[in-house]
């Protein structure tokens, strides 16, 4: 197991080199650059040259890349071109906010999806099953920017309410923080819930058809034990795979939700960075999210061995 983890972590290196190169090149290729952004209509050739020199953009691209990546491996992602603030500490503080949102979204999704998925599988083709399937389909097919916009409109028109605009941290004021985060997290969770519900249902159905479930029932185990101890555990592999993948895409999903609800998370940080062509910010954020994504997937793979002892990585 230890060898496997080390192997996987070593495998991170080429992935990160590839991603860092890709994002560096993409930032160079997208139209408009940071100097045009800073100078706007005041742009003159002299001013341009001054800024390129100041930001190190007058150096050859290869040198720029190597300088950046050389510092990045030591955890120094440079400083924002726009605000002068170091990027890495900012990423960490923004990540906490996004992670809170994503975790709350996941928890809401599981609370809704797992029981409903199980019920749906057990009462296959019943009225409940059909209702659950329709809800799941709605969850999957309504994009979160649409539901978020509708929720905001509904709350403002119907209840004269809008979530607080001033962001307050979780440990600063728990109540206000929850007031800010619950609605966005519910919306985020609803999309995820749809697919988790469908996956739970289908993988439960598959397991319930297997012979060993018959054997469990034949030996007189109660329905509760049959389902939670024997069926759910075996059907959870695909569900966990899905959740692992979703945590990654959740980081992407938070971009839209953060923007709509003005939550200063990692997604919003990246987006503002892109809009302002703030290269160190965008490159740092993308690299950070990539590492995170790979680590979550590694965690999921390790989790498999605990759920299903038959799986080994040797």
């Amino acid at each position, binding site marked *: 197991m230890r060898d496997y983890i080390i192997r996987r972590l070593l495998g991170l290196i080429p992935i990160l080199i590839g991603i860092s190169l890709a994002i560096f090149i993409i930032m160079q290729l997208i139209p408009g650059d940071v100097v045009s952004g*800073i100078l706007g209509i005041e742009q*003159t050739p002299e*001013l341009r040259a*001054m800024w390129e020199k100041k930001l190190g953009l007058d150096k050859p691209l290869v040198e720029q890349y190597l300088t950046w990546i050389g510092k990045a491996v030591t955890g120094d992602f440079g400083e924002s071109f726009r605000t002068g*603030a170091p990027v890495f500490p900012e990423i960490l503080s923004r990540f906490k906010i996004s992670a809170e949102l994503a975790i709350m979204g996941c928890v809401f999704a599981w609370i809704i999806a797992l029981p*409903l998925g199980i019920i749906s599988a057990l009462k296959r083709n019943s009225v409940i099953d059909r*209702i659950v399937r329709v809800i799941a389909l709605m969850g999957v097919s309504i994009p979160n920017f649409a539901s978020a916009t509708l929720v905001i409109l509904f709350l403002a028109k119907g209840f004269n309410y809008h979530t*607080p605009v001033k962001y307050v941290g979780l440990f600063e004021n728990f109540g206000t923080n929850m007031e800010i985060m619950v609605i966005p997290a519910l919306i985020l969770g609803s999309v995820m819930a749809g697919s988790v519900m469908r996956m739970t249902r289908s993988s439960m159905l598959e397991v319930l058809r297997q012979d060993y479930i018959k054997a469990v029932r034949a030996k007189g185990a109660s329905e509760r034990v049959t389902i939670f101890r024997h069926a759910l555990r075996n059907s959870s592999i695909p569900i966990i795979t899905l959740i692992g993948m979703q945590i990654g895409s959740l980081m992407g999903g938070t971009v839209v939700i953060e923007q709509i609800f*003005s939550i*200063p998370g990692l997604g919003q940080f990246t987006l503002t960075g892109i809009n302002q062509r703030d290269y160190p910010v965008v490159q740092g954020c993308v690299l950070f999210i990539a590492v995170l994504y790979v680590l979550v997937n590694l965690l999921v793979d390790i989790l498999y061995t605990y759920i299903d002892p038959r799986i080994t990585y040797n």
Partner: protein
Amino acid sequence: MKKLLALVLVMMLALTVVPSVLAEGNVLRYGMETEPAGFDPHTCSSHASIRVMSQVYNQLVDLDENLVVIPEIAKTWEVSDDLLTYTFHLADNVTFHSGRKMTAADVKYSFERILSPELGALGNSSSYAGDIETIETPDDYTVVMRLKSPSVTFLSNVSSIYCSIVDKDVVEAKGDLLQADGGTGPYTLGEYVPDNHVFVNAYADHFDPAFKASFDAIEFYTMTDANSRLNALRAGTIDLIVADTAMLDLVKPEDPIQEISYQTRDYFALFMNCTRAPYDDVRVRQAINYALNREEIIDFAFNGQAAVSGFVPASMGHWAVDVTEKDYYTQNIEKAKALLAEAGYPDGFETVITVGLNDGIRDIGMVVQQQLEAIGIKADVQNEENATYIDKWKAHDLDIMVCQNGAGSDPNRGVAFFFSTTGSANIQNYSNARVDELCVLGAGEADVDKREAIYKEAINIILDECATATVACPKAYFLATPALQGYAPNASSTSNFAGVTIAK
């Protein structure tokens, strides 16, 4: 189970629906459409940054809504007859937010910082402070600036936020002012949470009672989503938001919302390449002017919310020329066809209209394409991606290009920058010896009435030669709670909250 689930969902929602929090104390909550990009008045140009910096910094002088220079840090000033030496007499009660007294040495330091070759300050060009040759401080409250060449626009140039007076001690301690406060303004820079909010707090010791803070604090919030901004205003969580014409349609009469707007100094126009056939023929350019129905364009592109305008818009006060009096600003298809026939194009011709950058420009391109069809001109509208559009703009590679330009705060920019033969933004390659001569005369004439006559002559020549077909001057919009009183933004000053109140 279903009931239980419904109950849980309703409870979750109920938990979050508590009465909206009213602002504590006398505070203005302002929802902005973009995130500020730093707060150094010498290097930051984003709209959101300027709104915040306007509260924190002062300049030597200011412009009123009629573009007349008014005192700020400099209480009086003298200009030498040769327009080369400007002497400023400073107020003696100005203090920085650190409490330190501001003197002539700080003014000298601020302009030296702007002119330093390393900083890349926005004010380091001849449109602002770039023409300064030497700065002397004979005493603590007098500053003498000598220019490289005569200029009448120098005072309005240094009224820009890019020429703010900054605290040397703060710059030296922090390295820059991107996140630091080195100002003398009515508010101090307060709490900043990037991508969410920045607060400015009233500065009790501000030197000028006329600009004293009327709020305990102004809270600027970044709310990039327009729908969220509007609904936060509806719910009373925000007092003032930046709006656009599309948003105005969403405001219903029963909504407790007031609309605030002002005429900008921007204008949209069709620029025609005066050195490329067929636009090298003045009759063709006139025909295009006659072919346009500008009201129709404004209805389509700006929901009717813009004014027909020349390139020195009415918002520039006495400098403006009323284009609606010009014959060719009223659509006349017959006359347009006759002019085209006279120029040798009785059946019209094919051309390219280049558009890009923003929706206003693109919408204008589409309507113009249809309107030109009526006189036989088949236009291909090429919607360019921003960088390509700018490249074409720089290379003057155009038949017709739809542009949005800023006329600036002085006709010298509005005329010389865009229409003199060597003007930096003369993308239509227009050249007229008399206009060039007038631009030189205008830049060196101190008498306002004489200057006005000079620029009006130039403007009329350019209009009559149809070097451009200007369309409209758009408005800028804000939406606010009806309780907000006294906020009257104009093109010279969009973020002046002196005297503004919120009725409780």
